[in-house]
């Protein structure tokens, strides 16, 4: 994965970057349009709209008549995009929980921003929170650099301490007689429905800003994320890039606080990005996917929370993101556990088939005739299994056109393809045994186990090389013949199509 990302950054980087630049610019323009379109009206609480049927609510949602719907939707989608983009970088930098720490650390900043002029002024709160967040990251750096405490401890320390200071300040504010305090506690859990046009504009600004910064400094972010050593050797200002990212992150967290609250911001940062991480190896694609997942989670969350009373938007957004992650976790084509399980299973079945073929070969070999079919009883005895098991394996061979069954399914005849494969496996096995005894000086009675494993994975080229090194030997260390190429071809020449032959083994 690492190599891949490096590779994208070499020669073709210029055109790839330009392409993603224009695309991201389009996206930004689209977002500005989306945000500026809603007329300024007063936001109502989504949850107050309850008591109507779900379908009716869904219709109201999709017609976008309610300004509150427009604000909540636009806000959630904007923050989904921003968090997805920035989250991608913190996930690949293995600093996922920095988002968590930052989101708690901004709380005292929120309180101080409120104290500035005793109102819920978005700009003052924004500035205060950003400063507090940055201070938090600086503290984490300082603690990890000057003590032996590890980063997780430092993060937890800063998170909890800043949050406690914030709680103290908030309880002191609650006690104050003056000022419009309503809504300040909403920062803890967020309320997407209470977002006004001012909040949305701020969100749009932050979203556009992060898109522009990521586009302009894509290469810098990429290199410092994956290879900090190379980055600083090549003269990139890694410290500055780190704090630049932290600044953007603080911006994103502060705007997200409104919608999802302190605790769940980190989910919006981590979950869409981690889902994207499971799906692709390319950073540019990961950014796109994470932004799309974030947008999707935002839209879904605000939609579902609109459907019924008492459904909070923030947690629903998080759950939507988690659902996406669960799907990626299970069904990602490369890294999903369902696919991995399937691959393992098919590999196990292939090994099983090959072992059956090998046993058939052994039976034929022990008769010195290489003729006739092999009965199920013989196969079962050879493999030390029950007849039923042998029958099942024979059927499996026939399903893959490696063998045909005759006389009430009692006799197994290998097709040319089956014979060839059986020879190849036995040949791999014996060549490897010989190689281990000759070249590695391992005792002849110790090489069988290893050969049992490797016979299924040796490639053609390795086999050729083994033959060359062993000077085309014809017998293995136990004195049994190694099937030659000619012998394999003999089977292949027996019939044109594997299916219609009665198989190798009929004496001609």
């Amino acid at each position, binding site marked *: *994965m690492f190599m891949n990302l490096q590779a994208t950054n070499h020669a073709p980087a210029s055109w790839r970057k330009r392409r993603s630049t224009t695309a991201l610019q389009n996206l930004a323009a689209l977002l500005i349009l989306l945000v500026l379109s809603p007329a300024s009206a007063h936001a109502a609480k989504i949850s107050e709209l309850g008591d109507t049927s779900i379908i009716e609510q869904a219709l109201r949602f999709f017609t976008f008549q309610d300004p509150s719907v427009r604000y909540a939707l636009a806000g959630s989608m904007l923050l989904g995009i921003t968090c997805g983009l920035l989250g991608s970088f913190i996930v690949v930098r293995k600093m996922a*929980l920095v*988002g968590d720490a930052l989101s708690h650390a901004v709380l005292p900043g929120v309180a101080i921003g409120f104290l500035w002029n005793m109102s819920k002024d978005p700009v003052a709160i924004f500035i205060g929170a950003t400063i507090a967040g940055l201070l938090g990251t600086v503290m984490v750096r300082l603690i990890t650099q000057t003590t032996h405490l590890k980063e997780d401890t430092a993060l937890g320390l800063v998170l909890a301490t800043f949050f406690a200071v914030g709680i103290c300040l908030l309880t002191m504010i609650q006690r104050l007689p003056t000022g419009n305090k309503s809504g300040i506690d909403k920062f803890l859990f967020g309320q997407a429905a209470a977002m006004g046009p001012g909040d949305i504009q701020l969100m749009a600004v932050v979203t556009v800003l992060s898109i522009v910064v990521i586009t302009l400094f894509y290469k810098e972010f990429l290199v410092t994320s994956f290879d900090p050593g190379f980055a600083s050797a090549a003269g990139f200002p890694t410290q500055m890039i780190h704090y630049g990212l932290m600044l953007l992150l603080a911006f994103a967290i502060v705007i997200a606080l409104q919608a999802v609250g302190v605790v769940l911001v980190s989910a919006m940062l981590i979950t869409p990005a981690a889902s994207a991480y499971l799906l692709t190896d390319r950073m540019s694609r990961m950014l796109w996917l994470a932004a799309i997942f974030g947008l999707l989670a935002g839209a879904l969350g605000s939609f579902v929370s609109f459907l019924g009373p008492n459904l909070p938007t923030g947690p629903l957004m998080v759950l939507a993101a988690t659902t996406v992650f669960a799907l990626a976790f299970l069904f990602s084509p490369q890294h999903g556990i369902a696919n991995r399980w399937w691959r393992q299973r098919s590999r196990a079945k292939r090994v099983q088939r090959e072992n059956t073929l090998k046993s058939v070969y052994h039976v034929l070999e022990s008769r010195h005739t290489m003729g006739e079919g092999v009965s199920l009883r013989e196969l079962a005895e050879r493999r030390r299994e029950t007849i039923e098991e042998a029958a099942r394996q024979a059927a499996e061979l026939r399903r893959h056109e490696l063998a045909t069954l005759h006389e009430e399914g009692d006799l197994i005849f290998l097709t040319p393809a089956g014979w060839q494969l059986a020879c190849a496996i036995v040949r791999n096995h014996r060549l490897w045994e010989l190689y281990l005894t000759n070249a590695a000086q391992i005792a002849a009675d110790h090489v069988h186990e290893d050969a049992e494993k490797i016979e299924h994975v040796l490639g053609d080229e390795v086999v050729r090389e083994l033959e060359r090194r062993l000077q085309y030997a014809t017998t293995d260390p136990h004195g049994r013949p190694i099937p030659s190429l000619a012998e394999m071809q003999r089977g292949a020449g027996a019939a044109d199509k594997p299916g219609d032959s009665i198989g190798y083994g009929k004496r001609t």
Partner: protein
Amino acid sequence: MNTFIPPFDFQKVLVSPWTTDLASYGWIALMGFFVATACGLVGNYLILRRMALVGDAISHSVLPGLVVAYLLAGTRHSTVMFVGALAAGLLTTVLIELIHKKSRVKQDAAIGITFSSLFAIGVILISHFASKVDLDQECVLYGEIGNISLDVPYVQLGSLVLGPPTLVRMAVVTLVVVLLITIFYKELLVSSFDPALAFSLGINATLVHYSLMSMLSVVVVSAFESVGAILVIAMLILPGATASLISHRLPVIFVLTVLHAALSAVLGVHLALWLECSIAGAMVVMAAVLFVLAWIFSPTQGLLRRWLRMRQPVEPPAVAARQKS
């Protein structure tokens, strides 16, 4: 600003909690001490195992456990809450391990995904069943330690008045934690520092891991209603981190942890009285102040000490001198 930071009233802040108001503030300080001790002792192992943020995760994700246990059993009895929290805590650990082991998502991201999802489920459950659930999400996040002295009747043992029920429960939990750590000292120590050695000694690392996580869940849930989820994290990390700045020996660290817990509880009460703010918050602030003091003045690795050492002129190495002559 004058009303925001109240004037310092010596009598009210420093004297009254020890004299006239001892009945209420004594309980509160004691409660804070028990919470900080239990959390701090368990937290020491979390710090050693670099799992400090797993504590963070569990303290958030016990929320759905509490809600589900409450909805199923219909009571807020402490046993039910314990079982719910324990189940949720173990589920969190299992999920983190699952995501981290079975995919290429790193452990930190796995922690973040798990706890936030579970917490979101908890919040949704609470707001959806708001009429039925007597749990307050904000109370869960930053519970109020000041309420505990109001719990009556006090638990009595014979004629001896032990204290408010919450406090007695926390004291029992703390005692159990101390007992377990003493009994399984060797197992915890070895498996935290040297998993390979633990394996060769026949210590079941998985069992130790999950036992520690169970202990953590129990401690977290019992500390919950007094200090809330996020301040639990502070109590988990701050005492241990402070102690480990001062000493490298585990027994000494334990003693320092308890000392730190006591100091931050008492000082927190005073600070809260002065600023008239959340007592639990003030306790954490004082704990953090103690941490900063240790960070600066630690005799072995404090900032001051490092600064002094840097100012000392560097003597030429002895080997080089000999070669020259």
